């Protein structure tokens, strides 16, 4: 879709709702499902005389994110007022950070078709959310429950070059936010919102052209689609000799179009100045040390470790590492003696299939119980088919693998008269096929294997069976 002569410059501004219990400047509860205007107080209603007091948990969560992204966490940062007029902004200003944000620098690496790229982060700051307006013909209805919900705003460098990169980056950030317990990541409910800005320039140029900003994209896919549409639109304008106007756009997902935002009254002159009601935020070295100590393994590091420690391929490592629950489950299996390849095969196959999209933590068989079962399979006391049947028995009955084995009588038939008898009976039932096998149609070996397996209800030990069949057929 892009011509070769131009490249696009994409930057993201991501708003992540911080997982605090109370709002950023008052004690009102943070909840998304309350009746309108039932989670407010003098502070978040912007009543005269009310004052903000900063929730220190919001600072901690944002500092944790900053550390995870390799940012510099400033020991001293300053809140600032940003003024604009809107009825869901009760104070007439947002309390955010401007000149001195909490975190600066850092980056996050993504893997795309062209390899790995680290996308720099310009800054991360904390701020309060606005309320919600529902616009109608005869007026707007204002609900201020969301006023004062804490947000971290993550601003990337304008370093992304492709819509797919933007999507991949946002996905990676999402993973990190959820893994660190900073944000629940629910994009549909608006816990994670993304604005993108994009401009085009001729390859080789170093200055940035006029950019447009697309607001409030609520899914990974919409980020990619909106960028694709907007790049095509800008390219069309430039090709026909026109100029792109710097403006704010809205993505209409249903129509698949970007639309100009209905312009708000007045020019944007935000009149930032340091918030006098709040002292500077001080992050003590002690806090940073504690946060570093508490930091869980990050997804990227986990992937690398799984690859080297368990010899997983890239895809498998991503599958396991990107789900914290799955990582724990997998590593517990391995620690209990299950071979990594066997553990991976079972997780990726039977287990994920049975989960049907649910978290592994909800799975009815613990990793240690599963390890016992897989041990039976590995030592060929049971066949894979039997193992699957025992797994289902364990899920419904709740017992251990050994109980399932006895209850279902699935001890594999390894040797002795019984298996030999089954083999002989099977061969006797198919004299013509035996004839054909002996005249060179070797692929019929599998057919005989299958017949004996069925006759043994899947309990026949495959190794032993193979040996006996070979003896009787040759």
């Amino acid at each position, binding site marked *: 879709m892009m011509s070769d002569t131009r490249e696009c410059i994409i930057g993201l501004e991501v708003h992540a709702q911080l997982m605090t*219990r*109370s709002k950023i400047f008052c*004690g009102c509860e943070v909840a998304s499902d309350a*009746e*309108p*205007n*039932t989670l*407010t107080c*003098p502070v978040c*209603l*912007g*009543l*005269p*005389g*009310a*004052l*903000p*007091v*900063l*929730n*220190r*948990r*919001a*600072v901690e969560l944002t500092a944790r994110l900053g550390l995870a992204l390799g940012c510099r966490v400033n020991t*001293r940062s*300053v809140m*600032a007022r940003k*003024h604009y*007029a809107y*009825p869901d902004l*009760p*104070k*007439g*200003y947002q309390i955010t950070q401007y*000149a001195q944000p909490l975190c600066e620098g850092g980056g996050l690496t993504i893997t795309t078709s062209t390899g790995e790229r680290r996308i720099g982060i310009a800054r991360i700051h904390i701020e309060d959310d606005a309320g919600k*307006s*529902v*616009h109608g*013909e*005869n*007026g*707007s*209805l*204002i*609900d201020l429950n969301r006023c004062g919900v804490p947000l971290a705003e993550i601003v990337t460098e304008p370093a992304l070059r492709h819509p797919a990169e933007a999507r991949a980056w946002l996905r990676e950030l999402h993973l990190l936010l959820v893994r660190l317990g900073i944000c629940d990541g629910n994009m549909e409910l608006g816990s994670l919102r993304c604005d993108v800005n994009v401009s085009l320039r001729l390859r080789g140029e170093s200055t940035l052209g006029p950019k447009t900003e697309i607001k409030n994209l609520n899914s990974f896919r919409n980020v990619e689609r909106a960028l694709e549409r907007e790049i095509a639109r800008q390219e069309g304008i430039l090709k026909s000799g026109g100029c792109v106007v710097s403006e704010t756009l809205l993505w209409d997902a249903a129509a698949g179009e970007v639309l100009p935002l*209905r312009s*708000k*009254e*007045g*020019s944007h*002159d935000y*009149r*930032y*100045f*340091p918030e*006098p*009601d*709040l*002292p*500077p935020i001080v992050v003590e070295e002690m806090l940073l040390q504690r946060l570093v100590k508490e930091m869980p393994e990050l997804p990227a590091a986990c992937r690398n470790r799984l690859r080297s420690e368990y010899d997983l391929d890239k895809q498998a490592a991503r599958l396991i590492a990107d789900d914290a629950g799955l990582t724990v489950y997998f590593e517990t299996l391995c620690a209990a003696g299950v071979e990594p390849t066997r553990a991976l095969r079972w997780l990726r196959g039977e287990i994920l299939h049975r989960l049907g999209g649910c978290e592994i933590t909800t799975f009815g068989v613990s990793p240690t119980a599963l390890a016992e079962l897989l041990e039976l399979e590995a030592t060929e006391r049971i066949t894979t088919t039997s193992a699957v049947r025992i797994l289902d028995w364990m899920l419904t009955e709740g017992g251990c693998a050994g109980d399932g084995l006895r209850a279902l009588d699935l001890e594999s038939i390894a040797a002795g008269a019984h298996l030999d008898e089954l083999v002989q009976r099977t061969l006797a039932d198919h004299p013509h096929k035996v004839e054909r096998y002996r005249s060179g149609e070797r692929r019929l070996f599998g057919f005989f294997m299958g017949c004996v397996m069925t006759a043994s209800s899947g309990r026949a030990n495959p190794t032993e069976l193979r040996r006996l069949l070979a003896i009787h057929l040759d």
Partner: protein
Amino acid sequence: MRISETLIRHLEGIARLETSREERRGLRCDLGRFLEYAADLPDVDPAQAIGTAIPTHLSGDRPDEISPSLSQTEALAAAPTVRAGHFLVPPVLPAAADSSPPPLAVAPPVANPSIPVTSSVGESALTALSLTEALQGLEKGEFSAAEYRRDLRARIQQINPVLNAYCYLEPSDEAETPSRSGTLRGLPFALKDNLHRLGEPLQCASRILTGYRAPYDATVTAKLLAAGGSGLGRTNMDEFGMGSSCEYSIHGSTRNPWSPAHSPGGSSGGAAAAVAADCALFALGSDTGGSLRQPAAHCGVVGIKPTYGRVSRYGLVAFASSLDQVGPITRDVRDAAQVLELIMGADPRDATCRDLPTPGLMSEVDNGVRGLRIGVPSGLGRMAVSSSIRKSLNDAREALVAEGARIVPVDLPELEQGVAAYYLLANAEASSNLARFDGVRYGARAADCADLATLYSRTRGEGFGPEVKRRILLGAFTLSSGYYAAYYLRAQQVRRRLTDAFDRLWRRCECLLLPVTPGPAFPLQSRLADPLSMYLEDLFTVPASLAGLPAGSVPLGLCDGLPLGGQVVAPPFAEATLIRTLAALERAFPMRATRGAAVAAALADGGGEP
């Protein structure tokens, strides 16, 4: 500096403020004059400019704990229009393009509270008592708090029609027996019209807060109530604290009890007049650039602005957040010490309020100033100060020496830039703090607005008075892109330098003696035509405000029958030194008898016309 029509319209746009053509012409002229005055500020090194008031003050966050919210009914109670549990506002965009806007709907004037006028001005033994004396009387059983209250209300009803010191009196409940417990034993206190008291109207002397009732108690109100105080009424002020004469009020001007033709000063003019006329035992007011000290000086009473961060601002309607402090106006220094002891201290609801030990202040009153090093400016230089003020300051110096203090001549050239810096910074913050008054959630709303932008600009245009509009526009200018560095940052730099100069000063002396005002009380109406002349009234009070220092005003004598005040400024959190020094001056210049007689005489004249 010339303010172009385009610029003033831009400022009106970002400040959401509609003005008439005539108003706009006046505003262009006033802003231009002030900015010319402010042009003398030194150039700035942006790296050195500081943002917040006290840069070393770091503290005051809160744990992540949930506290109860208001119910939906409570949240929506004051809103002009609601629908289905929501605040309701007109559509963001007008329904159809209308050619000309409808004329401004003028909100009905707010009537002054009708307090019956009684014929003669009586003398009441009880109302003339100081707080300390009243408490002793209660303890000895000489009278009850209810009797005191009855006498006080009777005196207010006699005198307030002349003074207009109170804009609201709480309904009297004769059956009510005020609590006899606590430090205050049920004695009443007066609140400035910008301090919240649950359930009572609060208006900041502004039309825009018509009908607003406080849904919570300010921390200082709660502290006085907890100490056994009882509510009484609200005292008049300049709208949102913006003014030095108590004339910019929706409730009308307050008069000076020494001479009703004169202004009591402002913005806590109602509080000072009430206390001076024995219409309040004591009052709480607020001081942003002198609003307690200057009216106290003009009314011959005591006014103290504590250190920034000493008293909670929660529930004080903000004018300039980095400067505002709540403080007392009382008839003597001991009372001020007593009230300060009751209201000082940390508040989890105010992050700028410091968690420091609060000193006992009452015990400082009789400590004397022997050995104390007191700074006195070695000449007030080219500052416009009246000869009477110069003389009273000399008298004060001699009195302090007589008590054993050592006078240290000091030079503080930084004082002179204070007014320009103060008005730039205070109004920048004011333009931001007053953005919330938009007619959506509480207060008055302009009628018949078809769209949101009109609702905002007309509600604010009708709701705010001329001085408030002037300041909002000046503040919006100071913060707007293109002017921020030249004005806001330069003013911050001046503030920084002034603070540093005080820091150096405190190595040489324990407190500083200054005038409160350049001259005595001025006649009503005399400064209204020239806003800048009103601003210069604050020349000696804004330095302590900018540096966040405790400062108090105490009577020093008379000039042509009007009181003159002296100001003491102390280092941060040295309220104890402040009280000691103010008390020494009070001993040297007793004002009580003079004030009682002068006020009685002035009020017996029937007030006289301005």
